[in-house]
């Protein structure tokens, strides 16, 4: 057939494993995106540091040295010391994993629940939609602090419960976004085509709608990581966040609040660390979104 010549842009003749093909195109696209590469390298670095960094830090992250408190950056303490004289550099490194854990898990939980509710709402419409979305409205209109207090009251005060509380705030955001996208995706003809093949609702939702509402989810998720870390730290003043001496960045930031004038580095350094992580994930998220979009040429 002549068409072979015409469409032979990608010279794949034999038929290798389709998942491999998918993965390799995905990889090729991902690595061809500048932002994905920069973001990816940053993320890998962050993860590596989070994993092995704590074994190489110069000081114990919880060792207080009250005689040397609130010192600015110096050779001995690269990023200075905090109000207990603890080495901020060591704490940043040591707290990386817990911070990532907080940010990630909160986003993951909020996203999972929100996406689920949003898809159900958008796909089925009608009463289900009304009920779910009204409920989301209630959540949105409800002050987060109270919700967090109540959750912790029921489940007890632990970092994990705080994560749940933070996740709950982000559910309506995801639900709204996903519902909107679902409404437009479900109108596409290919959804009707698989329906006409006899596909069940579950198959349509998970195999056909979900992947196609992925991009806004990715964008929102990468942004939410920052807000989740910050919200979690905001709760620590209610005694709900990370407990001392846990070097969770949000808590470090909040701690630094009292020394904003004399020793602004105590709050600024964890703040910058959060921004770097957020930046890394956003860059990567942008690249990921493009790579997941098959319409973008490789």
């Amino acid at each position, binding site marked *: 057939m002549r068409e072979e010549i015409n469409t032979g842009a990608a010279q794949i003749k034999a038929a290798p494993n389709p998942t491999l093909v998918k993965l390799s195109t995905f990889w090729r696209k991902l690595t061809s995106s500048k932002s994905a590469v920069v973001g990816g390298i940053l993320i890998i670095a962050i993860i590596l540091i989070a994993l092995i960094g704590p074994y190489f830090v110069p000081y114990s992250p919880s060792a207080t040295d009250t005689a040397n408190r609130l010192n600015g950056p110096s050779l001995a303490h690269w990023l200075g010391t905090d109000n207990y004289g603890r080495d901020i550099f060591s704490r940043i490194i040591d707290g990386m994993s817990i911070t990532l854990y907080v940010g990630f898990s909160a986003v993951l939980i909020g996203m999972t629940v929100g996406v689920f509710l949003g898809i159900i709402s958008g796909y089925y419409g009608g009463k289900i939609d009304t009920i779910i979305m009204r409920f989301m409205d209630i959540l949105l209109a409800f002050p987060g602090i109270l919700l967090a207090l109540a959750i912790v009251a029921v489940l007890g005060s632990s970092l994990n419960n705080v994560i749940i509380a933070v996740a709950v705030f982000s559910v309506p955001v995801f639900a709204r976004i996903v519902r909107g996208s679902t409404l437009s995706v479900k109108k596409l003809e290919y959804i*009707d085509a698989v329906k006409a*093949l*006899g596909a069940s609702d579950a198959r349509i939702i998970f195999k056909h709608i979900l*992947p196609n509402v992925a991009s806004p989810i990715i964008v929102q998720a990468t942004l939410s990581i920052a807000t989740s870390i910050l919200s979690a730290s905001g709760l620590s003043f209610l005694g709900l966040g990370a407990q001392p001496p846990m070097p969770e960045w949000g808590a470090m930031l909040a701690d630094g609040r009292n020394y904003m004038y004399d020793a602004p580095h105590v709050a600024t350094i964890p703040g910058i660390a959060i921004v770097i992580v957020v930046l890394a994930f956003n860059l990567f998220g942008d690249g990921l979104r493009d790579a997941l979009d098959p319409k973008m040429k490789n």
Partner: protein
Amino acid sequence: MPKELLKVKDLKQYFPIKGGLLGRTINHVKAVDGITFDVYEGETVSIVGESGCGKSTTGRAILRLDEPTAGEVEFDGEDLLALSKKDMRKKRKDLQVIFQDPYASINPRQTVRQILEEALEIQNVVPKNERAKKIADLMEVVGLGAHQADRFPHEFSGGQRQRIGIARALSVDPKLIIADEAVSALDVSIQAQVINLMKQLQRDFALTYLFISHDLGVVRHISDRVIVMYLGKIVEIGDKTSIFDNPHHPYTKALLSAIPVPDPDAQSERVLLEGDVPSPINPPQGCRFHTRCPFATERCRVEAPELRNIDGMKEGHMGACHFMEEIKNGTHQVE
């Protein structure tokens, strides 16, 4: 007389319009408003008409992609509308659909193989270990070549994508295929390829087509019988030659005359219709075409015409106009 595969009786599809203080239904879009026709095994029936006249809605209602408001759809002797959701899913093996938009009608995230595999899996047409072969066969049948199975839709041209859609429809060995504007989006040179393919498949697999199109050239080429719709109603139905060479309804005539002929010497007498198709929310009383019909009389404004056969029409050729005889004889008087 060949067997009737599909019998549609008095099919209605109303879409609710919400509004008012409590968001209740305050009105309906009467997209399809009581149409009746049969499709015989192995033939191609086309539905033509202007945009919004209810062609697609008819197709979707038959497939139960939207649940019809009223009417009967009998397929192969079985009432489709009475089936449970689950039984309907099984039944879907026999009725397939090809859509207009070669870009929107296949999931951009699946390779051709995955698309076909999924279809086979859903209806479990062939055992798992034979699926690869079946896919390869299908690819050859639609002229794509088995080696292209692992590519993504965006790596194909529009015509090729439409072939993927056809392969997907064929994969479950259906009896009836509803083709909703299946070739409208394609360039002429590609369109011809796909039309030829569809005709060939019909011969090879004894398929029946319900072919929805607004392109009368294509319709004339592919159909055995033609249904002309206007604003949710059938205005004329008949075999292809009757409709094209001996149209009786004024709308059919206007429609045929409006199409530009690719021949600079052709001197057609054009019936120019005034205005646009009215809204299906509040369709005109009486004959729905009367607002644009050059022959409309008071009767047309009040009384809705029935489909009927008159002298000089072939058997099975029917029009829905009060004045078919008069117009034909040239004795019609517009008040």
